[in-house]
């Protein structure tokens, strides 16, 4: 939901970002692990409060409502849910844009190649006249 599949490229789920986050957490300290489980519990608690069911049992529109509310506090986080949104988004982006789907398919990253010459800028408008030195 944070980075969905679209016409351009696969999303975070398809890029197996969940496995990346699992691996990351397995290697993290106890505080980071408990922040993550507290966050997941808070999401389920919110789903129960709103729809009387866990998050994963909610339908797409309901899940979207929950995520939207979490994201509203992104710039000034006040609640557990706001803070968890920042955490889950950070790790999702980190995992996605370091994956083949994110870096190569979505962003069309061209680096890490063997070139015979460095490609110069070939836009005439970037070569505007220079001032005299």
């Amino acid at each position, binding site marked *: 939901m944070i980075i969905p599949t679209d016409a351009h490229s696969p*999303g975070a789920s398809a890029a197996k970002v969940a496995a990346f986050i699992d691996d990351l957490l397995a290697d993290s300290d106890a505080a980071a692990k408990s922040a993550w489980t507290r966050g997941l519990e808070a999401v389920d608690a919110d789903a129960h409060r709103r729809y009387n069911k866990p998050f994963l049992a909610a339908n797409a529109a309901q899940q979207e409502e929950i995520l939207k509310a979490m994201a509203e506090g992104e710039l000034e986080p006040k609640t557990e849910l706001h803070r968890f949104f920042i955490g889950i988004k950070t790790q999702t982006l980190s995992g996605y844009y370091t994956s083949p789907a994110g870096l190569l398919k979505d962003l069309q990253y061209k680096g890490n190649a063997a070139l015979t010459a*460095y490609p110069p800028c070939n836009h005439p408008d970037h070569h505007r006249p220079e001032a005299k030195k």
Partner: protein
Amino acid sequence: MLKITRETPSREFDAVIVGTGPCGGFAAKELTERGMTVLVLDAGPMPVPARDFARHEYPWQQPSRGLAFERRRPARPSDRVPLMWQQHPDHPFTTDPGKPFTWIRSRVVGGRSLHWSRASHRFSDYDFKAASRDGYGEDWPVAYADIAPYYDHVEEHIGVSGYTEGYPQLPDGKFLPGMPYNCAELIMRNTALRMGLPATHRRLAQLTRPHKGRAACHYCGACTNGCDVGAMFNSLVSTLPPAESTGRMVLRPDSVVRAVLMGKDGKARGVSYIDRNTKLDYEARAKFVIVAASTLESTRILLNSASGGLGNSSGVLGHYLMDQIAGASVTGFLPQLRGAAPRNDDGKSAGAFIANFRNLKDKHPKFIRGYCMSMNGGQTASPGFALAMPGYGASLKERIRNHYPAWARIYMSAGEMLPRFENRCEIDTNRKDAWGVPVLRISVTHGDNDRAIWQDGSEKMKEIFTEAGGEITSVGKQLNPPGGLIHEVGGCRMGNNPKTSVLDPFCRMHDIKNVYVFGGGAFPTTGSYHPTLTMMALTVRGCERLVREA
């Protein structure tokens, strides 16, 4: 592959060289080519580039996906080529409370030449003779005219790409062809020129054509993870091979030098070292001792060599320690590049450059000395900027994609930090490393002038970025703790006066005539540019004198 020895030679060499970084490597080359026999010791192992360098890797091939992205946990040891980026508990150092210091050590043959940023800028008399202009501290005991031939010599050997510009504060050198600018670099470089700032491309010890048997750069990026085609200068490909080919070099890795040993005649007779693996003690004998183990490690060896420090009649050994000012930066987007077609901007990991422009002819009211800036942008590996973009879903994904080619930044490459006596390192008598060698306690803080330089740079960068039409999304907030730029210098500074300096103008110890100390330790000031090229030039000059007088 360089030939190494596991033996512990008992014969006397003409010189023993401690360290194989930029300076130790050059000393080995210069002395052997002039007919001397040398024993070269390094505290670290011999690297195997195919195993130890992480080149041509995508982030998903690295254990925690590299360091490209902002991290939320400490790096795993394997993340950044551990041999080259060591913060190892086996050789610690200590600091005073409230005085953080960063010391990036690379205990490996090749030292920090394996991961350096390759920026190779000459100092000018604006740097060497700054004290005469503003009255603070002391001039270098050498002038540009003294060093220029050695800059030529070093550049011709290592290969430096760059453009000839004619800026008096950034002397031109013997350059290989310069690298082309990418779009973001060109936009910012032209903006800087329009503003009257001395802009050019970073001058890089990175080959734009084959040079002295080394391959030209193929622009794969990630140079600081090790370059095993030898397109970037390091000791393994550039200075140690010619030393070896003379047949006069014996190279012994895994040799942790503890101290310089003195003879009864008041001259050094060699060094004592410990085998890194067996922890057994040995002595190496030589007519000359070259300490080139890095600014701090060389100083540590001298401090550990005698009570009160070896060759310290001046009392300044360990003092006047500095690192250049860093941490000022501006990051954002250049709207003219938003949505641009994908291109490879990641191949050279360095870009446009602005030489120092402060306190040359005019006098700034708030500070003395100056700084240089670097500017780069475009599609670099992972979009770190994405973390600061609010929202989620398809619209966030599209915004990130759209902004990816437009990312750009300007940062302070090196700001001059003033030398102060109280900024120092000394031996911490309570702590030893894994080989039983007492460690350094480092005590360095920034002063008002240092902070004013950071502030001025920060404001100037905002001005340039805005003038380029850029949208600023974040501004560097802190003056980084000293050491972090890995431009640490001072500690055994050179000078004409033996009462106020440790080394003479040729990097020979005033007190002990057969000990030379090559490296940043000799610097009386930081200057306003990257230090390595100047260190290497001083090394060649010192070696030439050593041989002449041997």
